[in-house]
Every structure is written in C-alpha cells, then in structure tokens.
C-alpha cells in the first residue's frame, strides 16, 4: 500500500512548446518559439519535490494511524482543509474532523461518496485506504 511512487517526470513540462518575447541583435522584441527556460525547470522541480515530501509524510501519518486516508487525497491534490471544504460544500471544521481516523471510520455513505466523486475514485477505495494517485497524474491523453 505504501509503495513509493513518483508522480512527476522531471521532463514532463519540457515537451511543451511555448513562445516568448526575445530581443534580436538590434534590440527588437520578436515573438520566438522555444521551450521552457532552464531556471524554470529548476524551480518547478523544487515545487514538486516539496509536494512529494508532503505526500510521503502524509502516507507515514496514515500508516501510523494519526490521519485518515482522506488526508492523503487532500495533500496529494495540493489542497488544505479549507479548500477541500469549499469544493465539497462543507464547513472546514468538519473536514478537519474527517482527517482523523476516529471520525473517518464513522463517516456516512453520503459523505464518503461526496469525497470519492470529487477525487474521482470509488467510495470503497477511499474507505479502505487504497491510496490512488492524485487527479493530475491520471489524465487520459487528449490530442
């Protein structure tokens, strides 16, 4: 269950072709096609490493019984309790309670389904603690 998983490929933003304004020799700004600049790769990677660290720490807390599986799904999707509450139409203290195993075990079907639909997983997976990858690393290929 706690299989190590890297959700990001460091080159994953590299294949996007972008355009930017670059001055030519005479100082004229021209819209020029190119790829994402190297320093940007570095800071993007930094941000994702931080997210992965948080995900790992969340997995540990769940394994230790300190947090409910909901905590993993929240963190993996880069949210906090306030944002998750806004998305699922509840008050944030309720979400805070649901992040604790004691309350999570006692969740009704309706609330569980509400969370599961939001994270696009099945209620069973959520309840039983199968930690599915976050929304953004499951996308189907669109042309």
């Amino acid at each position: 269950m706690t299989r190590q998983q890297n959700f990001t490929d460091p080159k994953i933003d590299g294949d996007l072709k972008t355009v930017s304004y670059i001055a030519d020799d005479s100082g004229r700004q021209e819209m020029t096609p190119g790829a994402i600049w190297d320093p940007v790769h570095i800071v993007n990677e930094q941000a994702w490493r931080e997210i992965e660290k948080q995900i790992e720490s969340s997995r540990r807390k769940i394994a230790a019984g300190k947090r409910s599986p909901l905590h993993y799904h929240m963190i993996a999707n880069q949210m906090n309790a306030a944002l998750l509450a806004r998305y699922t139409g509840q008050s944030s203290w309720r979400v805070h309670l649901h992040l604790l195993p004691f309350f999570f075990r006692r969740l009704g079907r309706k609330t569980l389904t509400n969370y599961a639909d939001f994270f696009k997983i099945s209620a069973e997976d959520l309840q039983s603690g199968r930690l599915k990858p976050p929304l953004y690393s499951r996308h189907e290929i669109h042309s």
Partner: protein
Amino acid sequence: MKYIPDNTSFFHSQSAHCESGVAANLLSHGGLHFSEAMAFGIGGGLFFGYLPFIRLNGMPLVTYRSAAGKILKRLGRIPGVEIEQKRYRHRQRAMAELDELLARGVPVGLQTGVFWLPYFPTALRFHFNAHNLVVYGKEDGDYLISDPVFPGPVRCAADDLARARFASGALAPRGKMYYLRRVPAELDRGPHILQGIDSVCRTMLGTGFPLIGIQGMRLLAGRMERWPKKLGEQGAALHLGHVVRMQEEIGTGGGGFRFMYAAYLQESAEEMGDGFLRNCSATLTEAGDSWRHFAVMAARVCKDRPRPGDTYAAMAEQIRRCALLEENVFKQLRQWLKQ
C-alpha cells in the same frame, strides 16, 4: 460596425500570456487585428504586486501583471467594442449557456483553474485560478479549446472544463465567461496607446499603496533579505522558487512580462512614429534582462548550488536594480505623456 461572423472555426495564434492572448485572438477573430503585445499594452497589463496576505499554495502572491480581467475590461472600454461578461452561481446553467453560444458559432472566453485542465502538462498543474482560454466548439462531448499558451487547439472533457470553471480558492473564476458582441471595423489606436501607458505609469509609480509598483519591488527586496533568518534556509528557498515561478512560468513571456511590454512600446513607436517610445522599449528590455539575471541566481540557490556571491542580499540588490530601471522608464514615460 459589424457583427462577429458566424462560423465555428477559430483563429488560434499562440501567445506568451493567456489573457492578452485570448483578448488578441478574440478581437482578431472578430475582424479587428490585434497583436498580443498591443492587447497587453492597451489593456494596461503590466504591473508589480507583492501581496503576502493572498496565498497561493501557502506562498505569498507575487504578481508581475495586473489582476485577471483588467486587460479585457480596458479593451472593452474602447468605443465600438462591446464585451459581454457573466459569472454564474450554478454549474449547469453556466455550461448550458456556454453550449448555447457555441451553437450560435460564438467563440467564448473563460477564466479557469489550471489544476483541473487535463491537457496541461502534469508539472504545471498547480492550483492557479486565473487562466484564460477560448472555447470555440463542441464535438462528441468534448470542448474544442484554443488555449493561447499552447501551440495548437486542444480538447477537454465537459466534466473537467466544468470543474475548471468553478475552481475554488484564491482568484476563483466563479464560472466567468465573456464574448464579443461587436467590434469596430477600424480603430485609431493612438489615443488608446496613450491611455494604456498612462494607466501603467500610475500603478507603477505610486498609488500610495506600498505593496505595489516600484515600491512593492523594493518592499519585496527588503523582505527577501530577511527570509533566511525568518523562514530558515529551506523555507527561504521555497519562497524564492515561488517568486521565480510567478515571474517565469509560461504565460509571462519571460522576464515577468517586461519583454512583452517592451514589444508593445516598440509596436506603438512604429504606429505613432515616435522614436522616444523605442528608447523606452530598450530600457524595459534591460529591466527584463535584469529580472532574468535575478531568476538565474535564484535558481542556483534553489538547486542548492549557489555560486559565491549568490546571497539573499545580492538577490535583493538585483531586484532593487530592476526597480530603479523601471522607475526611470515610467518617470520618463509620464513626462512624455504630459507633452
């Protein structure tokens, strides 16, 4: 005057920034040719703001361009241009009205949250809610999208697009959608160019609010010097990376929109036959280079490979240099406007 032609194909032209790209594409589609830089400049898109009380992923908001919607708002004020804009409470209604417009062949601009758009590369899917795109059709339940920062048209499933339109958190779009009702057949850009420059001079040189404009840059520089002490090495590096991401993320054209604005001044110089604007364009390019210099230094620190001299004090000094360059440009431009 003429109405927007009734067809379903949309003229997609890749841009460096989403809102100016959407604005330029929509206007050009309507028959009034606009380059991205021109839309950005007349829309008064350049800005600087350091707003620590607004948090993105737990980091202070640093922005190099004006608030989402300002460019469109200003372009909508041009006589003869009519932009209809709506927000929604209910998802179903918002999607139904979008479909209705598409059925009539009207391309529609939307504000969306990037996190929910599956066609974005995974590494760029952060919770950032001020992204603009144009929907121009629907096919087999998928929306056909002209996203200005992508090389070509893309597709997005209806459910994902609905989620993106109703993303929550900072800068929530609340289903915002807009489309052109009419555009003038011709436009004398001169007065609008002046107004656009005037608007940016005002915000950059002093609104009395110390977090924005040149003052905001200097404030950020001062705060940055204290980050290592206040946040620890790691926290400081994360904040630093965030500043660079806001500056250099796709959609800034690099140099935190400074190059794009330089392109605008250059185009305006040609339009108005005024050499002075060309000089300003060159100075602003210098400011953009100076921002990029800061980004390079910052990236080395973030990667934990600083060279000697890559200190927070040096980076703050670099930002002050940018502030000085920009202060000079906008002071000169303000003088020039008075003539």
